[in-house]
């Protein structure tokens, strides 16, 4: 009797697990649905290969807990918050957890997940890979400007302790809080000089005018100009030489001797450090879309 009960319970648990897993609705990618690749991207072999390795999900859900790290209530709450923010701001705020990343890097997985689903252009995606213990935030479109590298790094730093301690739900909701805060603060001064220039999310930034430098430079230049012009107004000068009165034909430099008395050679070692400056903070995914982001281990 006991054995039957255990088997039953196991069966119910398995069934329940199956029910939980089946809550994430996925579709099949095939040529008739363009492999789920949005129209703004090219559809080459590279894109198809990458898309086929990416789950095709219902883009309205926004929270995809493939690794089952959240409780039911947590999932519901996260979904509610993510959907509320997304609707209000016309962004897609996405949370994905996966058991492992396959052969992709966290960056590539996160970028592909956003690009090869119907999330649109603008969004911020949090990826947690429990197998490799990676956490990664990928930003797309306007999200690159709103959630710039400073905010991404700050968010990663703030949520990593929760994730390390196994409070995945807390970490994810902390992420949503920080995203909401970012919306309240708006785009930072630095990034407000940037504009998205194409459908792929590429953006160009104007550098802020170095106004202090320009003012100081102008003051110095005009001061020097006037100084040298007015200096010419002082024309009475004491003569200190007699160049005009030296008879150069009669001048006779009869001794002109140079004797080498000493030679020294020293050598200094050149250290071959050629660290270039850091690259830009944006990169392109397999789709060709521009993304920002950052991540770390927990």
């Amino acid at each position, binding site marked *: 009797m006991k054995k039957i009960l255990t088997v039953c319970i196991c069966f119910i648990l398995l069934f329940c697990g199956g029910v939980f897993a089946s809550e994430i609705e996925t579709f099949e990618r095939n040529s008739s649905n363009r492999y789920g690749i949005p129209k703004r991207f090219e559809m080459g072999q590279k894109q198809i290969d990458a898309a086929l390795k990416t789950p095709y999900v219902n883009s309205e859900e926004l929270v995809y807990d493939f690794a089952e790290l959240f409780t039911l209530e947590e999932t519901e709450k996260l979904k509610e918050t993510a959907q509320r923010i997304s609707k209000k701001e016309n962004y897609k705020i996405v949370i994905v957890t996966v058991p492992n990343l396959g052969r992709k890097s966290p960056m590539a997985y996160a970028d592909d997940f956003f690009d090869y689903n119907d999330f649109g252009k603008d969004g911020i995606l949090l990826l947690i890979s429990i197998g490799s213990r990676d956490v990664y935030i990928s930003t797309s479109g306007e999200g690159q400007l709103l959630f710039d590298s400073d905010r991404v790094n700050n968010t990663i730093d703030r949520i990593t302790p929760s994730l390390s301690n196994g409070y995945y739900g807390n970490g994810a909701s902390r992420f949503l809080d920080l995203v909401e805060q970012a919306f309240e603060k708006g785009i930072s001064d630095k990034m407000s*000089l940037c504009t998205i220039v194409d459908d792929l999310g590429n953006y160009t930034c*104007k*550098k*802020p*005018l*170095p*106004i202090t430098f*320009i*003012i100081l*430079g*102008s*003051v110095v*230049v*005009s*001061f020097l*100009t*006037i100084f040298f*012009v*007015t200096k010419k*107004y*002082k*024309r*009475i*000068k*004491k*003569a*200190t*030489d*007699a*160049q*005009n*009165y*030296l*008879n150069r034909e*009669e*001048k*006779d*430099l*009869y*001794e*002109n*001797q*140079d*004797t*080498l*008395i*000493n*030679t*020294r*050679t*020293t*050598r*200094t*070692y*050149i250290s*071959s450090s050629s660290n270039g400056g850091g690259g830009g903070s944006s990169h392109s995914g397999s789709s060709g879309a521009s993304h920002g982001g950052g991540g770390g281990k927990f």
Partner: protein
Amino acid sequence: MQENTLDQKCPSCRAPLKFSPKSSGWDCDYCGSHFTIEDLEKIQKKREKAQKKKMNSQGYNCKNCGAQILVSENVTATSCIYCRSSAIIESRLSNEFTPTSVIPFKKTKEEAMDAFKQTGLRRFFIPKEFSNKKNISEIQGIYIPFWLYDYKVDSKVTGVGNIVSSWSSGNYIYTKTDEYAFTRSGVFPFYDIPVDGSKHFDDALMNSIEPFDYKELVPFNEAYLSGFLAEKYDQTKEEVQSVAINRAENTILSEINQTLNRYSSKVINEKTFTPSSFHGEYVLLPVWLLNIKYKDKIYPYAMNGQTGKMIGDIPVQKSKVVFTFFILTIFLIFITSLLFILIGGYSL
């Protein structure tokens, strides 16, 4: 103290006779006679004999109108303040005060005035009122006493110089320093370095109107002074010779320096100057002087009476300078900002 004035009068009609820079002779405005230096020398000798007989023990009186003329002790030629006829104080030009030669004026008073008016024309910061006539004192043609020094000097300079070369090989930069001991010896002959022999003419101002063309030096004759002011020296040949020597030595050092420019650094250990000949000559050189009074400050101007070189400090109108500074600064800020935005891709 006995002093005689010698006025130049036309030997034909006795009208006042003045040296004309234009014709390099003496023209009588009244009877149109023209005299050369030779003519006047003859007449002068005759008259000297006559004058010695009737010496005036009271000082000196104008030979033209008889008025007493008061002049400072160094003046040798002036004009009578009453009748404007020229007066030359002969006794002050005798013996050691007789210049060996003189360069006669070539530039007229009008040319000097024109030259002065030109100085301010293209200057931006000059106050408008500066070249206004009412600020200009009377322009004076003065023969200024100068010492001309001939100085021949044997000079020797020794020192140590470095030539540094560097190259890189592998991961090293090599620096080679060659140290040389150098000696430069030479004879440097200077001719006619001018130093003014009068305390009350500014040395720098006199330096600024150099050079004079000494080819036009002529043997001194008092007759050249008529119509102009003249002074005798009050600084002897020995008192001011150091000025000429310093100028010569500076020139020698810069000449020698030019032969040392292959050294990237050098130290001069020893320099000796051994004069082989030194000689000073007393001459009178022609200078037009005028003073401009602007805002309670006197701006002295001098023109070389031979070459026409006009020198003097030009005052700067402060309000114009400040205004220009602000306008220029704002303009530069505007232009650079525009360039940054249009070319550099910067944004406000």
